[in-house]
C-alpha cells in the first residue's frame, strides 16, 4: 500500500491498456481480415486520457453520426465497453461484408446493423481476452448492442459511467489499415471495484 502515487498508477494503467490494446488488435486482425476478404493491419497508436466533459467531441463534432457498439461485462470484472466507428468507416465495412456497391451510403438496415454488431463483437472480444489473459481474471461479455446516432449522444453513455467516480475517461484509438484506413475507438468502463481489481491483478497497487 502507498507504493505509487495516483498519477504513477494512471500512467502505468495507460501503458498496460495500450499493450492490451495491441495484443487485442493482433487477435482481432485475423478474424476481421477473413470477414473483409483482404489483408489488414491493426494498430493502437494512441491511448487518450481525457476529461469526461470533453468526451462528446473527442472523435468528431458532437452532431456527426457515428456507430457505437456496446457490450456489458460480467464476472470478475463488472462494467461495460464500447467500440466506436465513424460513419464512413461503418459504411465501408458494411459494403464490404454485405457485397454492396463500395460507395453505397444508404441508411443501415437490420442486416447491416447485425454485421456491424458482429465486427464490434469480434474486436471487443479480442480485446477482452487479452485483458483476461494478462490479469488472470474471468471476463464474460454480453451480446453486443448497437446505436447509430450523434457522437455526443452515444458518448454520453461512457461519460456518465466515468462521471460517477471521476472526471477522466480513457479512450484507446485503433487503426485498421487495409485498402482503406478505418479509425475505431475503444472505451473500457470498469466499475470502481473492478478498476481496483484490474490494477491489483496487474501488480499495480496504490
Amino acid at each position, binding site marked *: 500500500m502507498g507504493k505509487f502515487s495516483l498519477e504513477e498508477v494512471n500512467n502505468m494503467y495507460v501503458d498496460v491498456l495500450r499493450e492490451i490494446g495491441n495484443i487485442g488488435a493482433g487477435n482481432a486482425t485475423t478474424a476481421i481480415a477473413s470477414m473483409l476478404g483482404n489483408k489488414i493491419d491493426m494498430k493502437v497508436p494512441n491511448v487518450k486520457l481525457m476529461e*469526461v*466533459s*470533453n*468526451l*462528446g467531441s473527442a472523435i468528431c463534432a*458532437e*452532431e456527426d*453520426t457515428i456507430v*457505437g457498439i*456496446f457490450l*456489458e461485462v*460480467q464476472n470478475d470484472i*463488472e*462494467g*461495460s465497453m464500447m467500440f466506436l466507428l465513424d460513419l464512413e468507416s461503418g459504411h465501408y465495412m458494411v459494403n464490404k461484408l454485405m457485397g454492396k456497391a463500395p460507395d453505397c451510403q444508404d*441508411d443501415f438496415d437490420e442486416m447491416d446493423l447485425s454485421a456491424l454488431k458482429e465486427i464490434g463483437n469480434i474486436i471487443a472480444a479480442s480485446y477482452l481476452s487479452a485483458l483476461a489473459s494478462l490479469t488472470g481474471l474471468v471476463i464474460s461479455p*454480453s451480446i453486443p*448492442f*448497437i*446505436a*447509430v*446516432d*450523434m*457522437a*455526443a*449522444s*452515444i*458518448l*454520453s*453513455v461512457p*461519460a*456518465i*459511467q466515468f*462521471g*460517477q*467516480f*471521476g*472526471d477522466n475517461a480513457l479512450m484507446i484509438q485503433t487503426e485498421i489499415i487495409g485498402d482503406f484506413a478505418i479509425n475505431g475507438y475503444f472505451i473500457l*468502463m470498469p*466499475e470502481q471495484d473492478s478498476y481496483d481489481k484490474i490494477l491489483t491483478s496487474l501488480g499495480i497497487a496504490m
Partner: protein
Amino acid sequence: MEEVIKVGMADLNICKAPNIITTLGLGSCIGLTFYDPVTKIGGMVHYMLPDSTQVRNNGNIAKFADTGIRELLKRVLAAGASKQRLVAKIAGGAKMFEGSGLSNVGNIGARNAEAAKVILRGLGIRLIAEDTGLNYGRTVELHCDTGDFYIKAVGKPIKII
C-alpha cells in the same frame, strides 16, 4: 442577428432574447431549461447524473441534477427573471443502447428525467413540456424571444415543445 450560446456536457449558462441557447447531442443526459416569458430570460443546464450526494467526486455542480438545477435557478434569478413566472422544459434521458441494462448506466436516462421532476416540484417550478426517454440522441435549442424549445434528432423532423 441573434447569438447562439453553446452549453457543453456538465455545463450551464443563461441567455436573453433574441439569443438562442443550445446543447448538442443529448444522450442519457438531460437538457433542462428555465424561461421567464415576460423578461425573456432563459437558461439551460446539461447534467449527467441525478444525485451529487451519491458520488464521491462531485466538484462540478453542473454535472448533477440537484446541484445543477439549483445553480441555474440562482443564475436566472440574478439575471432578473421572476421565480413565479419561471417555467421549465426538459429533453434527453434516452436509453442509447436498447436492450442493455445489466450495469447501472442502463436506466440512467430515466433516473435523470425523474430527478428533474422531483427537484422542480421541490422548488415549486412548473414543468410545462418534456421530450424524454426512447433510444435516440437529441440536439436542443431554447429560443429566448419565444420560449420555444426546438428538438432535433437524426432522421426525424424538428419538434417544437
